[in-house]
């Protein structure tokens, strides 16, 4: 094996290759999923999506938000409000985060707080209960999370009163409907999902640190999409309140479509020759077939659609100049395998395939 002295990249083809963009419009939506979303919207219930990693659960929310925004630009946010569940998440984390230490620090070690007072005064004025002493400092240490944001955004009254605004990336100038994505909900402890039940039912929360200030859903819609990798079982009571949809791993033809949509659309459009286009499609099909073989092989960690796309993206030059996988440069091919295989053993297995 030859040794390499230092890193050198080709600027055009390697180093500055544009990041693979995930465009919501590339998302392929099958009718079942579409109908599931319709039901969820109709019934105003959270949609629980399960499926193997990489089957596009997360991206559905983006797609939905984008589509809604396109249709009703003034009504919907263009992006979903995302909450990434962690193993230590609690239900309040869905609504807001309270920076206790910062608050403590601020109260003790920051005597001067002109801005804060201004802010606090401003905040104080919007408080609905005048006799209750305002806690302007607290608001600084509370940050709304996805669901909290959505609730506040949905209610014009709350939007005016809420001291925790502005939010990041969100135009809070007017009430909006929103799509909330609670990602990987099964990651959290069981308590999280159990607590979630009520919150999702009522779309209401209290800020305990802020004198139990209550926020409630307003006139606008909130569509909640939950995803789960089905690593753990979710409580029945929780499932009962959701609209459930399991996204199957796409079939070969669907994969083909996905790949064409996400990676090759523009390139293929550019190549005029129909025969060339056909050859490329053939090649893509071949690669996908290989991928399916790999996926069906007894791997420790199975590659998902995301891996396929990455892998194809990595090999797209070879595909565009139709070159079967076996004829791809050995190092490049092996390198590509590391996209698919996440374990040493899997990698070894791939080499034998």
């Amino acid at each position, binding site marked *: 094996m030859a040794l390499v002295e230092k890193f050198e990249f080709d600027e055009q083809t390697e180093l500055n290759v544009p990041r693979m963009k995930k465009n919501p419009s590339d998302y392929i939506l099958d*009718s*079942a999923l*579409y*109908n*599931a979303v*319709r*039901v*969820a919207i*109709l*019934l105003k*219930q959270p*949609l629980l999506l*399960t*499926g193997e990693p990489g089957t596009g659960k997360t991206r559905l929310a983006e797609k939905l938000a984008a589509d809604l925004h396109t249709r009703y630009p003034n009504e919907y946010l263009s992006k979903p409000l995302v909450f990434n569940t962690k193993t*230590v998440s*609690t239900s309040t984390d869905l609504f807001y985060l309270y920076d*206790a*230490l910062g608050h*403590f620090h601020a109260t*003790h070690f920051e005597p001067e707080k002109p801005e804060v007072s201004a802010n606090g005064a401003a905040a104080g004025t919007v408080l609905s209960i005048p006799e209750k002493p305002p806690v302007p400092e607290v608001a600084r240490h509370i940050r709304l999370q996805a669901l909290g944001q959505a609730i506040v955004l949905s209610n014009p009254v709350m939007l005016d009163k809420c001291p925790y605004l502005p939010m990041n990336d969100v135009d809070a100038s007017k009430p909006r409907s929103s799509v909330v994505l609670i990602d990987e909900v099964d990651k959290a*402890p*069981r*308590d999280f999902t159990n607590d979630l039940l009520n919150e999702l039912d009522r779309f209401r929360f209290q800020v305990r640190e802020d004198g139990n200030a209550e926020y409630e859903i307003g006139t606008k819609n909130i569509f909640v999409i939950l995803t789960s990798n*089905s*690593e*753990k*079982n979710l409580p*029945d009571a929780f*499932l*009962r309140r959701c*609209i*459930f*949809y*399991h996204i*199957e791993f796409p079939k070969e033809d669907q994969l083909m479509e996905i790949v064409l949509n996400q990676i090759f659309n523009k390139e293929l459009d550019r190549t005029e020759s129909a025969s060339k286009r056909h050859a490329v499609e053939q090649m893509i099909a071949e690669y996908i077939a290989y991928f399916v073989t790999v996926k069906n092989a007894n791997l*420790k960690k199975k590659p998902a659609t995301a891996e396929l796309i990455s892998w194809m993206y990595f090999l797209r030059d070879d595909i565009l100049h139709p070159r079967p996988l076996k004829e791809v440069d050995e190092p490049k091919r092996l390198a590509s395998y590391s996209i698919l295989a996440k374990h040493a053993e899997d990698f070894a297995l791939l080499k034998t395939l």
Partner: protein
Amino acid sequence: MTPVSPHRPLPLGELLEQLRREGFVVTPEVYDRCFRIADTWFPDGLTTTGQLRELKELLGPVVVRSDIEQERFGAIFDQVVRFSDQAAKQTETAEKPADSQKPLMPDRLRWATLLAAITLLLIGLVVYYLQKPVNPGIEPPQTPSNSTQSPGVDTTKRIDPSPVVRPSSYPSFPLIQANPTRITTYTRQTGYLLLAVLLATVAAAAVLFRYFFPSRKRLPSDGPPYFLTFPDQEKTIKVAESMDVWARQLNQRDEGQRRMMDVARTIRATASRGGYPSIYYQQIKLRPRYLVLIDQRSTFHQQARLYAYLGSVLTESEVELETLFFNSDPRTCRSEKYPRGIALSDLYRLHRHSYLVLITEGIRLIDYDRGTVAPWVMNGFDGWEKRAILTPVYPENWTSIEAILARFFIVLPATPDGQLLLRTYFQAGEHPTFQELRRQLQVNSTTAADRGFFGKPASKLTIAEIDRFLENPFDTEKPTEEEITRLKQWAYATAVYATPTWEMTLAIGKTIERFQGTDAFVTTTNLLKITALPWLQQSSIPEPLRQELLARFDALPTAMKTAIHQDVLQLLESVRTKPGSLAEEERERHTYEVMLTDEKHRLEALRKLAPFQKAGLITSPTVDRQVGAHERRKTVAYGLTLAILAVFGLVAGYFIFPETSPTTPAGLKRFFYTTSDSLRADSAMMYNNLAARLSFDSLKNTDFATQIATAVKTIGYKPANDSIGATYQNGLHRITSRYQSPTGKRSDGFQAVSEMTAEIEAHQKTYLPVLESELYSMQIALLMASLRQRNTFEALYNLHAVRFQRGVFLDSTGNNSSRERDLAIRGIRKIVAPTSWYSAPGFFPQDSLLVDYLNLLNQNLQADSLLIRVDALDSYGANMRKYSNPAYAQDRSNRQIQEIKTAQQAAQFNRVNLFLPNAPRNKNLLVVRVPRRTLSPERSDSLARLTAAWIKLHLDKPDSAPPTIPATAVKTAPVKAPSVKTRPKTIPAKTAPTKASNQTPAQTNSYPTQTKPATDERPATSSPDPEPAAVSPIDNTANADVKQEPQPTVVQRGIPGDYGVLVGEVRETRMVSNNLFLLIAANGDYYQVRIGNQPNASYGKSSDTPILAMAENERVRKIPGFQRFSSAKEGFYKLDKTSTSGALDYLRTGDSYADFKVDRKAYLGGLVSVSKKSPTRIYVWGARWQPASSTNPFKLPNGFYEIHYVHQNQGFYSPNDVLNAPWQDGGIILDSGSLKAIAIRFSSQSTTTDAKGDPVKATAK
């Protein structure tokens, strides 16, 4: 709820109901949501097909809870929709299952029909071939067996009765000989019977075989589903209280890893420290998570199922539990979520923070070589801080295995008390040692005990050990004796179902629970014990153990047993299987095997299991043996049944078909009998036949004469003139012996014969009248003897025939008076009457009248009207009633009605009371069994013949119109051509010549005309030609005697007999009644040539004179006929009636006849002279007769020929013109050195004829 649709309603209700049945959680909420969806998107129902998919996709997310459910939902939805489609359309698919089952019966029927058809065909074939050998038997052998004949009677010659033929001119009643009785015996063909019985048995065997051994060999099924999926029984389990406690325990929160600031405490502390910030945190308490790995050695491992159930119970109690299964080796675990298994490392990744609980005996986790836990266990489970093993083994039976495991795991027994310790140990910081555990579990023995109950496989367990195990309670419970008994019952009852399953165990437990009237039997606690039974952890019970358990089970109360059987079968019944699937096969087999343990259904089960056994599908050797034994028993029973059937059939056959059958076997019986005919002649017949043959002629036969003499002596007949008979015989004998003795034999045979005949005639003449009466009385005696033996038709007939003839004979002799005649007639009546009414040993009435009588009796008429009719019947002579009864006349009305009633009654039984007029008073009533109305042909024939004879004899006036031979009698006794032996009787001819005139109607017209011409020389012109009249009698005799001769008819003209030429030597001449007779010998044969007129008409009377014409020498030689035969040998040559054959024709031979000189003075007698020294060769043209003639001037013995028509045979006038033909003239040529031809014609004959031989002028000259 469901929107009404003009197109098609949504199948929402059915769908949700079906989903609920399939185990989906369908809450009212789900209903609500689904209908909201329907209302929103399908307010009009489904209008397009695409909407169906949409509906599915919309409803799915609402109902399903997991990806597995999502998949199933799709299937169920499709199914329901299809079903509702079909229901709506009422398509045939719903009927298809019914169709597929239906063919079974027609199939069987078709088989039965086919079988029956084959059997019938076989029987038909056999019957067909059976009949064939019988057929020849039906043709009776014509030769009677000698054994049945009376001695001395040569019956072989008398099969056809040869009547004694009387002269045709007499009214004759030829006596008839009795035919030997044909006795048909029907002998049973035992071989055929046996064959038939065997055949029937085979047929029965085939039919029974279908019944006993239906060929329903069970084809091994291989379709899915492969397993029996019993309905869930777990909801019947009563969860013990300890489980709640355990659940609460397990749910106790742990301190989480994440801490958050305890604001209140921090502020308080900061304040107390004078503002120095002192921050306190509080840990967030989390509910603990458990990862439970259950050792499940097979899908049937019931303990594993129990633990899984316990797990689900805990989950319901909000314990956060993840249950997975492994098979001995926990490195790969499985669950519904990971059907392909999940590696331990992956489990660790996902459940790192959980408490690990393994439920296993842990045997495979140990490295026995090193006495530690296996290295992979170390590696794999090390990650989990808290890990425990729940072992089903009781602490008392813990051994080193547990000791080793205890070094790495917290080892606890999977008992209620052990479970409760789990949480405690998890929370305790330290890992307990084996000793601590034992102490904790109160195991006191210092040494490690053996594994005891848990160490033994099911096959080595004894009932006692099982009992002991079940008697041993958990520490926390205090079971009563009764509870322990129930537990044992449960254990025993599990053996009912041969392949234990979790659901079955629960169902059985539930039955016992219900039967014992408790509500806490199928509890988790009890299940912990029951599922510890080794056979419940595998899919089968070792056969010996099962039998032992079943023996114990049998001791249970019958009601309980019945209940258990019922419930087990019900559970099996409830399993949904698809026909043809492996599961279906399993289900059936198990059902029958369960039934096998039930005495009541044992037989049925054995029967139903047979097809399985044939297919080799039975796994249990015991069941296999039982079924096999049953099959063998069945085979034996089958064989025995067949044998009994065959024996019974044979015995029945022997009863139904006796060895010999007296009557003609009808119908089926025919096939089993061979018919053999035998002719039997008894003494009655012998006497009758002797009487029939008795005649003068026959007496010449010495053999016969001796026979007669013997017979006559036997019957005790004493001849009135014995000496006369003897003298006659002796005389005859003397004469014949003299002529036949070598010394008396003369050289001139012919002369001798005629002399002998003459002597015999003379002899006869002397004795004849005496002999006649002697013969008569002998005949009567013989016939009476015959009748004494047996009342036969023939004897009776002969009797009255003989007497009748006698009467007529007496009459005709002239000395008959009217009184005598009346007496004779009365006598005849007396004879005849009984024959027409009665016959046989018992008398039978005339059948036709009897039939009428019986018909009357059976007509259900009023007695009065019946009486009138019977009277009418009696007036015909039916003689059905008692005339002689004195009471009859006095009390007529009562008596008659009574009688009629009796008769009616009797008639129903086919009996008739007959009155016998001539019997003594006390014997004159005869109860006769009436022959069935189907009379045998012989009987009815004889009756008919009798009736005919009777009518002719009795009703006709015997003197006014002498009866001819009864047609019927002639029919049965046909007149045979007279044989050499029988010669026509001359006696009547001599005694009654005058009567003959009006008895030969054929001649009556011609005789008066004959008188006129007398001896006119001239040819008769005005009167009819006498010659034809002379010819006619000849004709007549020919008709009577020569049957073979063609009858002259209008169409076939010409003379009768064989026309031809006789070449021979003249031996003798004789003139008889103006007729010249020549005796000509030709090559040893004698010919009697007659030249002249009719034999019995006197020459003088005839109007015709023969006209002779002669030619000599050279002229004779010109005759072509002579030329042709001049050198011919002696003999008779038949000639065709043509010009070339040598036939003569005086008128057509050209000049040959013209040369003949008519010699009117020539004397017929002087034509031929006989010289003994130089015999004259003679050529005679004429017609030859078979030997039969009443005139025999040369006394020739029988066998001679006659030549007639030795004259011109053409030119006859009517009515004799039928004889006319050319080329058939007769004539003589004599060759005695010189040649001399003589042509003869009658004066009435015309000398000019046409081509047909008829006279040219229509009338005589």
